[in-house]
């Protein structure tokens, strides 16, 4: 379990993290969302024991990160932003070094090394110096280092940043595989990733915790939630008909691709109504979609207003 209470970090005049509190239970994958400079990395650095908080407390698996740093660090696997590693070393040498420091030896050590090398497909590059590896491999070496000791808690700062779509997919399935019995905290800019990976999302901007909910709950805050969108050759007529429905609050037409979106009045299930309308009137509809909500819109809504406040303050 991770337990964070009233955590703050101040750099000179800048309050990078402002009184954040939350808990994470085993089995949860927590996504940290926020614009650049929101305080995500700073928070993760404090949880990992790299930076000391200005105020507040952090407990990891029952150990206070400040009072008992060694006990806490033993239970954490951490991938810093950009996956730094010693460039002149080979992945083999680097993982051996981490295994040494983590105190792994004998059979356990061999098994764990084999396991992470296999899981991250590092066999081919084991004896090549890290500085000559591609970005994808460097990231995988960083991940291998983080999961080597099979930690209870994984803190991954932008684990898929800069990877190509295939590599992103690999890293995501790796995280999903490990999610069952661990606590995983990842930070990301990629909202689809929150959807694909996280059981919970925390939105931070300007150092403040602005939202703490499941991705589905966040989507429900979107004005697109429950909306119906469609494309048709007969736009004017369809728009006219949609506007005539009492369940529809508003109709918008995308100027670029002509997509029509109908927004429901509060608490109304719009999809069956619209599909019935299309069937009855026999409209030539190419595509009909139910909108569960748009995370990017919710994200903007939450973070932009917070930053505006901050700029005025």
């Amino acid at each position, binding site marked *: 379990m991770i337990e964070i209470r009233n955590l703050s970090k101040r750099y000179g005049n800048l309050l990078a993290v402002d009184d954040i509190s939350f808990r994470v239970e085993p089995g949860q994958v927590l996504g940290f969302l926020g614009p650049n400079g929101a305080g995500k990395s700073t928070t993760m650095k404090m949880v990992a024991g790299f930076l000391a908080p200005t105020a507040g407390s952090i407990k990891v698996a029952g150990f206070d990160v400040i009072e008992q740093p060694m006990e806490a660090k033993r239970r954490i696997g951490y991938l810093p932003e950009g996956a730094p590693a010693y460039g002149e070393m080979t992945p083999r040498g680097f993982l051996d070094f981490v295994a040494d420091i*983590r105190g792994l030896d004998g059979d356990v050590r061999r098994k764990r090394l084999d396991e992470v090398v296999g899981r991250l497909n590092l066999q081919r590059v084991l004896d090549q110096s890290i500085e000559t590896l591609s970005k994808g491999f460097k990231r995988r070496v960083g991940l291998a*280092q983080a999961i080597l000791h099979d930690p209870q808690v994984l803190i991954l700062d932008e684990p898929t940043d800069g990877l190509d779509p295939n590599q992103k997919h690999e890293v995501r399935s790796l995280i999903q595989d490990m999610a069952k019995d661990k606590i995983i905290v990842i930070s990301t800019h990629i909202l689809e990733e929150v959807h694909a990976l996280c059981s919970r999302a925390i939105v931070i901007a300007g150092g403040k915790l602005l939202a703490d909910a499941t991705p589905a709950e966040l989507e429900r805050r979107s004005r697109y939630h429950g909306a119906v969108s469609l494309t048709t050759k007969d736009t004017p007529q369809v728009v006219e008909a949609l506007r005539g429905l009492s369940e529809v609050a508003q109709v918008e037409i995308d100027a670029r691709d002509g997509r029509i979106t109908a927004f429901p009045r509060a608490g109304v299930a719009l999809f069956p109504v619209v599909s019935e309308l299309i069937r009855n009137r026999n409209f030539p509809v190419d595509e009909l979609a139910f909108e569960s909500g748009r995370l990017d819109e919710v994200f903007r809504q939450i973070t932009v207003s917070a930053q505006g406040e901050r700029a005025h303050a």
Partner: protein
Amino acid sequence: MKSATWSIFRRELAGYFATPVAYVFIAIFLILASAMCFYMGGFFERGQADLAAFFAFHPWLYLFLVPAVAMRLWAEERKSGTIELLLTLPVTTWQAVLGKFLAAWAFIGIALLLTFPVWITVNYLGDPDNGAIVAGYIGSLLMAGAFLAIGSCLSAATRNQVIAFILTVVVCFLLLLAGYPLVLDAFSAWAPQAIVDGIASISFLTHFQAISKGVIDLRDLVYFGLMIGAWLYASALVVEMKKAD
């Protein structure tokens, strides 16, 4: 406790030899050490079977070569971001400072050991006091350690290796000459005599020369021990303080 320092020590020492820099450094050290000894020191002309001419130039050789080794100790970790990785492993700051320092010291020790042909030469040519030569080596290694501890601290203070190098050279130069008019004159005009004496007593050169004459005095050993310990302690403080930026 011991094993983390040991792991860091091994990684760092292997790191020196992973690049050609280590071999270039050792070659330059050996060439300069022998050139200074045989040409500038007048090793043969002195007609004495000892290594005084050899050790006399070590402080000046170290003044530039040790800061070159020390400058990357922490500046590079901070620049590449690996400091974040290292210090979130179950390692204390002190273990990391110590492991890195000992590896750099061992590296310089290896370079120093490789000057053994000079020792063979002087034994072949005459009948030197080998006890005094051992003392000279010990003094030389201790002084290198003190320079290195200073370099470790200043390397932790910046992420720029060039700045770390220059600062270390300047501080080492001042400490080297603390017992000489160049430095003392700046203080003797206004400071009380006790302070001037105090400054004079922290001179590297006086303590080094005492040892390299073959007299291992406990006070000189304590001096170098304290010097190394204090600068390493300061290194740990600076690493803690500066790691955030």
